[in-house]
């Protein structure tokens, strides 16, 4: 009796999977077609990155990435009401795109050679630079070289520390630093304020978000040493959508929206918007 019940459950589960698969393989083949036909998009953003993508207690999301995503969606023909937001973590971004659980990802997603085989990137829409955040009274850290012998934060699940310790920076210099492990950037900030480490390092926009929140106790050094090309992640091979997103990005620069959005989120952090034209597109491969 019981085995028969289990069998029935399995059968219905299999049927469900089958029907889901049928759904996935339906009419729209590219995200652009989906946007034009359904007027709906599912976009992956960060939920825990102040200034870039942050979910607020009332359930809405805000940030630079979020606003860029809204603009691009609009250019693809989808109004804000047609967007479903989904949390894209660093660990699930590729899977989300491969399985079609999200249509676009705008989540501090750097275009890297390692990711290119798995993801088609539109953009970059902004080039960020890795920098360091230090205590406001610390004058000993002024450049990449001056980090030698300092204690920097190593956040598991982030590559920023590698750019210093393993030399993947613009100067290709391996700096001999002491790594202090932490689970998240918030913990790094606590440790930095408590003198348990000397510098927190990651993309300047993320640091600017923290600097703004912490007020005068912390400062961004202002000595960038990497180029992080923030792109829009798409399902591998979706060239049509990629071209359309690139067009939207070019337009975002030519009509000045990008500067407005940037200032909205980063004014007063000491971070200035300097780009005058869209960064050269990586090409939709």
């Amino acid at each position, binding site marked *: 009796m019981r085995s028969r019940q289990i069998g029935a459950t399995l059968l219905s589960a299999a049927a469900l999977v089958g029907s889901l698969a049928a759904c996935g393989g339906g009419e729209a083949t590219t995200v652009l077609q989906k946007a034009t036909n359904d007027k709906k998009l599912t976009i992956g953003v960060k939920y825990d990155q102040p200034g870039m993508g942050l979910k607020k207690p009332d359930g809405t999301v805000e940030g630079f990435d979020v606003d860029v995503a809204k603009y691009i969606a609009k250019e693809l023909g989808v109004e804000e009401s047609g967007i479903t937001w989904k949390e894209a973590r*660093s*660990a*699930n*971004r*590729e*899977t989300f795109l*491969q399985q079609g659980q999200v249509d676009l990802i705008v989540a501090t997603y750097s275009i890297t050679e*390692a990711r290119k085989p*798995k993801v088609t990137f539109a953009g970059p829409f902004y080039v960020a630079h890795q920098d360091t955040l230090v205590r406001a009274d610390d004058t000993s850290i002024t450049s990449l070289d001056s980090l030698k012998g300092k*204690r920097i934060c*190593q956040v*598991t*699940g*982030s*590559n920023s520390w590698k750019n210093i310790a393993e030399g993947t920076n613009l100067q290709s210099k391996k700096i001999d630093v*002491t*790594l*202090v*492990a*932490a*689970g998240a950037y918030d*913990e790094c900030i*606590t*440790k930095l304020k*408590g*003198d*348990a*480490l000397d510098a927190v390092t990651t993309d300047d926009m993320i640091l600017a978000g923290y600097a703004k929140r912490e007020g005068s106790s912390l400062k961004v050094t202002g000595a960038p040493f990497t180029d992080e090309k923030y792109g829009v992640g798409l399902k591998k091979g979706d060239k049509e959508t990629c071209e359309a997103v690139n067009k939207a990005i070019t337009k975002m620069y030519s009509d000045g929206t990008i500067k407005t959005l940037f200032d909205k989120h980063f004014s007063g952090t000491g971070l200035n918007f300097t780009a005058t034209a869209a960064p050269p597109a990586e090409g939709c491969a």
Partner: protein
Amino acid sequence: MESLLDFGPLAEEFTTILAGFWATVRLSAMSALLALLLGTILVAMRVSPTPVLRSVGTAYVNVLRNTPLTLVLLLSALGLSDTLQLTFSRDPGVNYYWWATLGLSAYTAAFVCEALRSGVNTVPPGQAEAARAIGLTFTQTLRLVVLPQAFRSVIAPLGSILIALIKNTTIVIVAGYIEASSVMKQMFDDYGGTLPIFLGFALGYMVLTLPTGFFFGWLAKRMAVVR
């Protein structure tokens, strides 16, 4: 489909992964040792004739056993080490290793104490009375008569606690110590969260825990007190 079952990242990062598991082993071994020590002291307090010691032991066990381990570790690392600046060493690697070890063993000691206390209860009261009758003090009774038998009867539960301890190490990143599961998180960022990476790490933990379970099962049988 081939991207779903790509075991390449595991081979590529093999040395990093091994280093991660070695960190897990170092942390677990030291924590187990300290937890056993502290747990034994606690059980001595809980069965002692002095009311103050008894209540201190009971309070400790109840507080630590009912506090989430994450909080214990956060208190040690962020609270005591970072904010109050109680540090073991200027070298963060050493400092956070000891804070993680302390947090983990302080927590596990509560469970060790309770397992041992149930072992103490298996020793017939006549033995303790006989020990007192021949003039042994409380400490001597505990050390020579009661605890040796108590330990032998709770070897299997202690094994379970050790396995739980090994698996609990996966959250010590909140105390700033990097072990295998942090390596896994880092790999998820580099390669995306794929099934093979997950399976590889699950296997790694089983390599640590399964033999532990078998060893303690064997030891429990061998050392069982025949009554």
